[in-house]
C-alpha cells in the first residue's frame, strides 16, 4: 500500500536516479566526473542562492528583473541564461576532446557517458546557448533600432522567456537526477524509442525542447509584429538597420520552422508515452518521417542562428570602418533569399538514407545555391571595409576572423552538398568540423562581438578591451586547433559520436584537438575575467553620451545606460543610418520641442509562473509524476484565463515633466563632455560623445 503510494508520488524516481551519489559506490573516473557534474550544479545553485541572500538581492532581482516586461531587462536575462549554458556546453565539449585525446583503445569515459555528453552538448549549444543569446540581443536591440518603446506584446515576451528558462532548468536537472538521452541532439528514433531507451533520457530531450520551442515560436510572432507595426514614423522597411532586417527574417523563420520540431518531438512523445507507432520498427512505424520532420525544422534553424549574427556583423563593420554599409539593398535581398531557400535544403542532412538519386541531386543543387547569397554578404562586408578607416576593436577582431574562417567552413559545406562526396564523409568528424566551423565563427563570434558592441548601451560602461582581445584571440586559436584536425581525421574515416578508436594514425590529431580544448577553456575563463575587470574598473570606461563607437543607427542616439522608456520623444526618421546622417549635419543631439507623458506596460507574474510551473510540468511528465504534471499544467492554464478575465495590468505613466527633466539633464551633460576622435576610442576619455569624423569617406 505505502509502496504503491510512493510510486504514485515519485513516479520513476528512485534511489538509483540520484547521480550525485554514484561515485560513492563506484569510484571510477567516469563516475567521479558524472557525480562531480551533479555536485557542480547543486553547488552552483547553492552559491547563487547564497550570493543573492548575502547581498540582499532577492527583492531587487524580483522587482527589476523577474516580473519586468522591459525588453532590455528580458534581453539581459536571456543573455545571462545563455552564458550559463555556454559554460556548461563548453566544458562538456572540452571533456569530449580530452576523452578522444586519450581515446586510442579506451580513454577514461564510458561509451554511455560519452553519448550523454554529445547529446547534451548539442542540445544545449543550439537551444539553450545560441537561441537565448540571439533572442536576448534581438530583445535588447531591435526596439531601440526601430525607435519603439517596447515590443508589441510585452507580457508574451516574458512568457517566452519563462518557457525557455523552464527548458533549460530541465536540462540542468538532468545532471542531478537520472540520465539524459544518449541519442544525440537529433534524437533519431527508433533508438530513442522506449524499446531501446526505456529510461528518462529521451523524455528530458522531448520536454525541454517542447517548452523552449513554444517559447521561441512566441518570440518569433512577437518580433514579426513588433518590427512590422512599431517602427518610428518615417522608418520605412528599406530604412531599417541591417540587424533589424536579420531579426525580422529570423523571427519569420521561428514562426514557421519551430512547428516541425514541436511535431517531431510530440510524435516521439506519443510513441513513448502512449504506445503509438509513428517511428517504431514494428507495426508500420516509419522513422524516415522523423528525419524529415526534424530537419524540416533543423535546417531553417541553422539560419535562425546565423542570420542575427550576420546582422551584428553588418552593424559592426559599418561602425568600425567609419563608412556606411556597402550594398544595403543586396544584403536585404540576400537575407530574404537565405530565409526562403533555408526551407528547400533539409534533405541534405540525410543523403545516405536511401532516397532516389534524383531527389538527392535536387537537394544538392539547392544546397549549393544557398551559398550564393551568403557569398554576396561576404563581398558586401569586404567592400564596406575597403577604403574605410578600419579600427581593430574587439568586435572587429571577431568579425575579421569570422570572414576568413566562415568562408573555409562554407567551402567544406559546398563539398558536403555534393551527394556523392557526402556518401564518403557522412557521419565522420569531417561533418562535425564543418558545422562547428559554421557555428563558432558564424554564431558564437557574432554573439560575442554583439555583446561587446552593445554592452555600454545597456549598462553605461564599456567592457575591458585588453581582456576582450585576449579572449577573442583565445577563442579564434582554440577553435582552429580543435576543429581543423577534425577535418583531417574525418577524411581519414574517423566516425563521429564514437567514444574510442583503434587506428593510431588518429591520435596525434586528437591530441592537437585536445590542446585546442584547453585554449578554448582559457577563452571562456578570460571572458569571465573580462566581465569582472570591466565591472571593477567601470569608472574608467563610463559611457555617458551614449555613442562610444561613433555608431550609425538609432539606438546610439539615446543616453547610456538607456532609460526604461528608450526615447524621450519618438524620433521621426528621414534616412537610412539616421543617426550618422544627423551627426554629419551636426545635429546628433537635438532638443525636442515638446515632451509628452509616456505609457509603459505594467509588470507581470506570467513569466515567473511559466518558468516555475513549466519546469514542474516537464519534470512531472519526465518522471511519470502525473499529479505534478496535471497540477502545474492547471496552474498555467488558470493563470492565462485569470489574466484574460482581469485584463492588462495598469500601465506605468511617466509624466512629461520628468521625461523633460531627465532628457535636458542628459543633453546638458553631453554638451559639457569633450567629443573624442576615434584615436581615443579605447581611452578613459571616451565618455561616449564622438567628434565629427573629418575625413569621412563617402
Amino acid at each position, binding site marked *: 500500500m505505502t509502496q504503491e503510494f510512493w510510486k504514485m508520488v515519485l513516479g520513476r524516481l528512485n534511489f538509483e536516479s540520484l547521480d550525485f551519489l554514484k561515485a560513492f559506490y563506484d569510484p571510477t573516473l567516469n563516475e567521479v566526473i558524472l557525480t562531480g557534474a551533479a555536485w557542480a550544479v547543486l553547488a552552483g545553485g547553492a552559491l547563487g542562492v547564497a550570493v543573492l541572500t548575502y547581498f540582499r538581492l532577492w527583492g531587487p532581482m524580483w522587482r527589476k528583473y523577474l516580473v519586468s516586461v522591459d525588453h532590455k531587462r528580458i534581453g539581459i536575462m536571456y543573455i545571462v541564461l545563455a552564458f550559463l549554458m555556454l559554460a556548461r556546453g563548453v566544458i562538456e565539449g572540452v571533456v569530449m576532446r580530452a576523452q578522444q585525446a586519450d581515446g586510442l583503445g579506451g580513454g577514461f569515459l564510458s561509451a554511455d557517458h560519452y553519448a550523454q555528453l554529445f547529446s547534451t552538448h548539442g542540445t544545449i549549444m543550439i537551444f539553450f546557448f545560441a537561441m537565448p543569446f540571439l533572442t536576448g540581443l534581438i530583445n535588447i536591440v531591435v526596439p531601440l533600432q526601430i525607435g519603439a518603446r517596447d515590443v508589441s506584446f510585452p507580457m*508574451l515576451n516574458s512568457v517566452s522567456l519563462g518557457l525557455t528558462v523552464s527548458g533549460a532548468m530541465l536540462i540542468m536537472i538532468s545532471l542531478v537526477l537520472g540520465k539524459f538521452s544518449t541519442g544525440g541532439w537529433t534524437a533519431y528514433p527508433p533508438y530513442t524509442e522506449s524499446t531501446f531507451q526505456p529510461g528518462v533520457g529521451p523524455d528530458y530531450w522531448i520536454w525541454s525542447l517542447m517548452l523552449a520551442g513554444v517559447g521561441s515560436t512566441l518570440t518569433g510572432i512577437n518580433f*514579426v509584429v513588433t518590427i512590422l507595426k512599431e517602427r518610428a514614423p518615417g522608418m520605412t522597411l528599406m530604412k531599417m538597420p541591417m540587424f533589424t532586417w536579420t531579426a525580422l527574417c529570423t523571427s519569420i523563420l521561428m*514562426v514557421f520552422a519551430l512547428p516541425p520540431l514541436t511535431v517531431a518531438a510530440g*510524435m516521439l512523445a*506519443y510513441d513513448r508515452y502512449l504506445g503509438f507507432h*509513428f517511428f517504431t520498427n514494428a507495426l508500420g512505424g516509419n522513422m524516415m518521417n522523423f528525419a524529415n520532420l526534424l530537419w524540416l525544422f533543423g535546417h531553417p534553424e541553422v539560419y535562425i542562428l546565423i542570420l542575427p549574427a550576420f546582422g551584428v556583423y553588418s552593424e559592426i563593420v559599418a561602425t568600425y570602418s567609419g563608412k556606411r554599409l556597402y550594398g544595403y539593398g543586396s544584403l536585404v535581398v540576400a537575407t530574404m533569399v537565405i530565409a526562403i531557400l533555408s526551407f528547400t535544403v533539409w534533405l541534405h542532412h540525410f543523403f545516405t538514407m536511401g532516397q532516389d538519386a534524383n531527389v538527392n541531386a535536387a537537394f544538392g543543387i539547392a544546397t549549393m545555391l544557398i551559398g550564393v547569397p551568403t557569398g554576396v554578404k561576404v563581398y558586401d562586408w569586404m567592400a564596406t571595409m575597403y577604403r574605410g578607416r578600419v579600427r581593430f576593436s574587439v568586435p572587429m577582431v571577431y568579425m575579421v576572423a569570422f570572414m576568413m574562417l566562415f568562408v573555409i567552413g562554407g567551402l567544406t559545406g559546398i563539398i558536403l552538398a555534393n551527394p556523392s562526396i557526402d556518401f564518403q564523409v557522412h557521419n565522420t568528424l569531417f561533418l562535425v568540423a564543418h558545422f562547428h566551423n559554421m557555428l563558432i565563427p558564424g554564431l558564437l563570434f557574432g554573439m560575442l562581438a554583439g555583446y561587446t558592441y552593445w554592452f555600454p548601451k545597456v549598462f553605461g560602461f564599456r567592457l575591458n578591451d585588453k581582456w576582450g582581445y585576449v579572449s577573442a584571440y583565445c577563442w579564434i586559436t582554440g577553435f582552429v586547433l580543435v576543429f581543423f584536425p577534425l577535418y583531417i581525421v574525418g577524411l581519414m574515416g574517423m566516425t563521429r559520436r564514437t567514444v574510442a578508436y583503434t587506428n593510431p594514425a588518429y591520435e596525434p590529431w586528437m591530441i592537437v584537438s585536445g590542446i585546442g580544448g584547453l585554449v578554448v577553456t582559457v577563452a571562456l575563463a578570460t571572458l569571465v575575467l573580462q566581465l569582472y575587470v570591466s565591472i571593477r574598473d567601470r569608472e574608467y570606461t563610463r559611457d555617458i553620451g551614449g555613442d562610444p563607437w561613433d555608431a550609425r543607427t538609432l539606438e546610439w542616439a539615446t543616453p547610456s545606460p538607456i532609460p526604461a522608456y528608450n526615447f524621450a520623444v519618438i524620433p*521621426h526618421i*528621414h534616412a537610412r543610418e*539616421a543617426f550618422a546622417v544627423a551627426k554629419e549635419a551636426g545635429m546628433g543631439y537635438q532638443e525636442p520641442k515638446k515632451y509628452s507623458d509616456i505609457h509603459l506596460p505594467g509588470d507581470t507574474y506570467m513569466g515567473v509562473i511559466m518558468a516555475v510551473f513549466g519546469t514542474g510540468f516537464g519534470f512531472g511528465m519526465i518522471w511519470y509524476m502525473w499529479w505534478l504534471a496535471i497540477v502545474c499544467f492547471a496552474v498555467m492554464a488558470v493563470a492565462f484565463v485569470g489574466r484574460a478575465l482581469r485584463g492588462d495590468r495598469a500601465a506605468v505613466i511617466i509624466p512629461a515633466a520628468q521625461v523633460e527633466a531627465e532628457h535636458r539633464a542628459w543633453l546638458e551633460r553631453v554638451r559639457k563632455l569633450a567629443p573624442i576622435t576615434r584615436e581615443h576610442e579605447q581611452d578613459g576619455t571616451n565618455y561616449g560623445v564622438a567628434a565629427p569624423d573629418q575625413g569621412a569617406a563617402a
Partner: protein
Amino acid sequence: MSGNSTAIYAAPGLSFEAEEHHDHDHAGKALSGFWLFMMSDLIIFGLFFATYATMLTPMSYAGGPTPKDLFELPGAAMETAALLTSTLTFGFASLAVKYDMGRGKVLGWLAVTLALGMVFLGLEIREFVHMFAIGAVPERSGFLSSFFGLVPLHGAHVTAGSIWLIIMMIQIARKGVDETAKSRLARLALFWHFLDIIWIGIFSVVYLGGIA
C-alpha cells in the same frame, strides 16, 4: 545613397516633431499576431496531414484495419454539418457585434455556436469509442497512430475554442461588448473558422479519401 536623399528634408537623419497623439491600435497588432500564430498552427496540422498521407500504405496498416474498414460517411457527415453550422452561427454573432444588436443577441448566438461545437465533439468521441471497441486503437498500427494524431488534434483545438467561447461569454455577460471583447471575439472568430477549414481538409482527406 542616404546622404543624398536627406537633402529634401528640413532635418537630416532624424528629428523630433510634435508628437501627434497616434492611436496605438492594439486590436490591429493583436490580430496580426494571431494570424501569425494560426499560420504556425497550420504548419503543425499540415505536417500531421503529411504524416497521415505517408501512412496510407499496406506496410503502415500492418495487417490491421484499413480506412475502408473504419470510416463511414453518415457519422462524418453529421460532424461536418454540426461544425459548419456552428461557423455560420458564429458569423451571426459577429454580425450582432458589428451592428450593435445588443448583448443578448451576441450571447445567444455564441451559446448556439458553443452547443453545436459540443455536438461535434460528442459525435467525434462517439466515433472514437466505437473504434476502440472494435480494436482500432492507435497502438495497433502506424496508420491508426497517424489517424489518432491528426483527428483528435483538431478535436483538442475545438475543445480549446469552446473553453475560449465560455470565457468570452462570461466576460461579455459581466462587462458587455466593449472594445476588449470585440477585439477578442474577432480573434476567436478567426480561430473558429480556421478550425472549420481544417475540418474540411480532414473530411476530404481522411473520410472521403478513405471511402473512395
